[in-house]
């Protein structure tokens, strides 16, 4: 019986990262560390604690060892043994970073870099030591040590059950239990005696166990029966029950235990293994475990005691037996038990009532005279377990390799149960519609036409709802992307000496997971820029009559089929003149006559443009805004800038809701159907020959109001045959990409519809000018045009013949 724990790695990693986010947010919410409220500290503690638990179980000791130190300090703060200081908050934040890095490295199957971890641990330990000195209380320190050592102990302790290789001395030492318990003989004595009596006894030693539980032992679900059953698994057990403490029947309380026992156990197991079995009840009983000679016999005379009180005993037994049954079936009506006890007691025959159904072990029996052999094949089965364990470890390894190879890039998503429920609901409706339609199809005649069209309408609605629901599964609140910013702002304001207040708006706006992952970096860039280039120093702000503290607002909202994410600051704004000057410096091509500020601002997205006078380590690293714009474009989005000198700037990012579904215009060229993304279409028109403008080379321009739009005949671009190769009266779809317009020459405009994007690269290979494919209603495949790629392709096609000539 074995479970491959590696299947839980992914869940653990995700949970650990989530936990770190929670820790970080909680830490950032702390304004005055010394007055931190309990709930915040508890939240941080809990997150660290969960990470530690999971990491330890899965064997990520790098994480669990580190978190343990973290947790120790947190625990002291939680218990008000020490005050939280701002240095600690810093240290905790750094720990979050370290743990995040370590987790990510483990996720990618890399060996984590632990130098930083050791430094942090050293810093933590210094702090923990400092407590000891300052408060002059060795209490806290020793307790911390205690908890560390006892966790090691716990490991040993539990390991002991399955792992016999550890010496019993080692176990003895670690075991507080042994010290707490009421074992009367001193340790040394016991060990001496153990050696003496154990020597030469091939079939194990004989132990005399005296076990007298406190009456309330049953109320924690600890049954003596269970304990004896376990003892019996260690070897041969004889049990003798003492009934002398049984009260008179009238005074009997059914869920209290008045019985106690003397047991004789012949086993090869060590004393610790025996004590382990009593681990949970050790504080609730009198217990002695001593070695005796094999000739020892459990005292039989005791069984005869209080014979005169037999009736009472029988009732007790009956009651107890019933109670045990009750225990097992989880029914707890006291009255019922008592009355059962009376009725069965009235039968007066102990023997018929006493035996418990499951086993020959009968802790409640007063038939101590009869030896009840409780042989166990424990040692045999243990061997088998050991063998199967080894096997499973081996097979685990194999499995792990397979899993690792297959699942390296697979990421998962957590979905609210309500979303899943609504899906199930919709599928249910779909099934109903389907069965209705198939019934209709069984013997269809034209009278049923209306019902058919109703059914199809219903099917259409079901499908749409189902589609929306499925899309929602991929949607996550944008707070996932926003959450990293409070920390970043804090670090950056420390670094730059600028004071910044961050406001988040619309964090609940949902966005496709892939879009979210890819928008994160561009947003970071924009926020860094806002602090570095936008917000002024506090002195400067005061001089300008602004609030000393600058403000950055991150907001998200739905706008049509788009998500709009804004990064705005109230800093110095962008000076168009400075941009123009810079563009001249950097030899960036632009129209000198340009006065439209929007167009001028767009220059900052040109490659090689940077307005900062000196390159800082915060934002100006040369790659800058052109990368931001490219990333956003790759997602099918766009970015706009708005800025007023002295007032601040707004960067507005428009993103598609999802990457999986596209609103498309279907067009036909020859026998082929292509999909043009609806967002890129400016207009569709019929070509009028007077507007055609052939300039030099093979570029044909079409005059569209004041623009000259190059015409790209799609059939030429993809080298297929078309119905119509004449320009006159042909259909032209004017599309825009990268701020440029082109006209696509097509044969026919078909329907507009939503198409599900299938990757062409994944199923075939990358084709320039094509961004993907989709499957149409009739089952045929249509290619989706990538406008900017198409422009590029055509430009290259034109260059080549030139070079050849």
């Amino acid at each position: 019986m074995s479970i491959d724990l590696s299947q839980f790695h992914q869940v653990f990693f995700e949970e650990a990262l989530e936990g770190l986010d929670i820790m970080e947010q909680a830490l950032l919410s702390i304004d005055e560390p010394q007055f931190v409220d309990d709930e915040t500290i508890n939240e941080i503690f809990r997150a660290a604690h969960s990470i530690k638990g999971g990491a330890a179980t899965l064997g990520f000791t790098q994480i669990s060892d580190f978190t343990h130190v973290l947790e120790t300090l947190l625990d002291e703060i939680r218990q008000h043994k020490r005050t939280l200081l701002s240095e600690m908050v810093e240290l905790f934040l750094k720990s979050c970073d370290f743990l995040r890095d370590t987790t990510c490295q483990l996720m990618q199957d890399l060996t984590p870099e632990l130098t930083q971890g050791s430094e942090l641990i050293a810093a933590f330990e210094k702090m923990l030591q400092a407590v000891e000195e300052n408060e002059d209380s060795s209490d806290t320190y020793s307790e911390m040590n205690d908890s560390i050592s006892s966790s090691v102990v716990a490991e040993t302790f539990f390991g002991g059950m399955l792992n016999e290789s550890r010496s019993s001395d080692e176990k003895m030492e670690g075991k507080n239990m042994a010290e707490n318990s009421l074992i009367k003989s001193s340790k040394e004595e016991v060990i001496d005696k153990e050696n003496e009596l154990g020597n030469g006894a091939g079939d194990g030693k004989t132990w005399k166990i005296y076990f007298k539980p406190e009456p309330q032992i049953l109320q924690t679900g600890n049954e003596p029966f269970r304990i004896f059953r376990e003892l019996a698994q260690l070897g041969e057990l004889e049990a003798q029950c003492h009934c002398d403490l049984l009260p008179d029947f009238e005074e009997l309380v059914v869920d209290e235990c008045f019985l106690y026992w003397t047991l004789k156990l012949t086993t090869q197991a060590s004393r610790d293994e025996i004590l382990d079995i009593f681990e949970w009840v050790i504080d609730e009983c009198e217990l002695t475990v001593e070695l005796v000679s094999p000739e020892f016999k459990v005292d039989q005379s005791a069984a005869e005691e209080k014979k005169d009180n037999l009736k009472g005993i029988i009732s007790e037994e009956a009651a107890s037996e019933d109670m045990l049954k009750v225990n097992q079936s989880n029914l707890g009506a006291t009255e019922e038990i008592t009355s059962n006890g009376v009725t069965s007691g009235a039968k007066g025959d102990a023997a018929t009532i006493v035996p418990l159904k499951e086993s020959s072990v009968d802790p409640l029996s007063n038939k101590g005279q009869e030896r009840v052999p409780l042989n166990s094949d424990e040692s045999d089965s243990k061997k088998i377990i050991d063998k199967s364990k080894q096997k499973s470890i081996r097979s685990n390894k194999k499995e792990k390799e397979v899993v690792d190879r297959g699942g390296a890039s697979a990421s998962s998503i957590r979905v609210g149960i309500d979303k899943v429920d609504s899906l199930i609901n919709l599928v249910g409706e779909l099934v109903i519609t389907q069965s209705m339609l198939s019934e209709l199809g069984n013997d269809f005649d034209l009278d049923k036409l209306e019902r058919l069209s109703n059914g199809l309408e219903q099917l259409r609605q079901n499908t749409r709802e189902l589609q929306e629901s499925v899309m929602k599964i991929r949607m996550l609140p944008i707070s996932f992307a926003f959450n990293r910013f409070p920390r970043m702002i804090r670090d950056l304001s420390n670094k730059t000496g600028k004071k910044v207040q961050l406001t988040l708006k619309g964090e609940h706006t949902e966005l496709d997971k892939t879009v979210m992952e890819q928008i994160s970096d561009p947003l970071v860039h924009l926020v860094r820029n806002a602090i570095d280039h936008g917000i002024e120093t506090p002195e400067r702000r005061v001089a300008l009559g602004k609030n000393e503290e600058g403000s950055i607002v991150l907001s998200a909202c739905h706008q049509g089929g788009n998500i709009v994410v804004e990064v705005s600051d109230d800093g110095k704004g962008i000076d168009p003149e400075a941009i123009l000057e810079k563009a001249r410096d950097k030899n960036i091509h632009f129209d000198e006559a340009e006065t439209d500020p929007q167009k001028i601002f767009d220059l900052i997205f040109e490659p090689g443009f940077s307005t900062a006078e000196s390159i800082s380590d915060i934002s100006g690293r040369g790659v800058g805004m052109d990368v931001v714009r490219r990333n956003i474009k790759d997602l099918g989005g766009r970015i706009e800038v708005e800025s007023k000198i002295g007032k601040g700037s707004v960067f507005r990012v428009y993103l598609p809701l999802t990457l999986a579904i596209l609103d498309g215009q279907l067009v036909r060229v020859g026998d082929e159907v292509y999909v043009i993304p609806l967002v890129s279409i400016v207009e569709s028109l019929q070509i009028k020959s007077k507007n055609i403008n052939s300039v030099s080379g093979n570029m044909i321009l079409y005059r569209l109001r004041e623009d000259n739009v190059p015409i790209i005949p799609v059939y030429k671009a993809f080298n297929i045959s078309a119905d119509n190769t004449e320009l006159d009266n042909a259909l032209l779809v004017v599309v825009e990409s990268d701020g440029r317009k082109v006209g696509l020459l097509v044969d026919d405009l078909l329907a507009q519809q939503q198409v599900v994007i299938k990757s062409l690269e994944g199923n075939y290979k990358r084709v320039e000018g094509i961004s993907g494919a989709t499957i149409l209603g009739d089952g045929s495949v249509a290619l989706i045009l990538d406008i900017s790629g198409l422009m590029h392709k055509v430009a290259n096609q034109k260059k080549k013949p030139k070079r050849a000539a």
Partner: protein
Amino acid sequence: MTNILVVDDSTSMRNMVSATLSSAGYQVKEAPDGKAALGVAKSMKFDAVITDLNMPVMNGLDLVRNLRALPSFKYTPILLLTTESSSDKKNEGKQAGATGWLVKPFNPEKLLATVGRVIG
């Protein structure tokens, strides 16, 4: 059919425990905190409960106290699955009415052995 209720706020821990138990043929219900667990506990019977100590909304100790107050959980074995290895915490757990404890990190064999101990 042996029903076991597994309570832990950590999904990975809960998944591990419940996968281990299911693989051994136990029927497992999960709850992410004490309050949710109590809700589940009132709706059906369990042969054992395994709970974490430190959880949001309702912690493990409060859960144990509340469960013990229910007639159907009066004698049900309740195990604490915890990283807290100090005897203070264990005693607190016992006071609340817990049957015993299992120290994290657990391994599947250890978990099943311990569950096997409390379930017949």
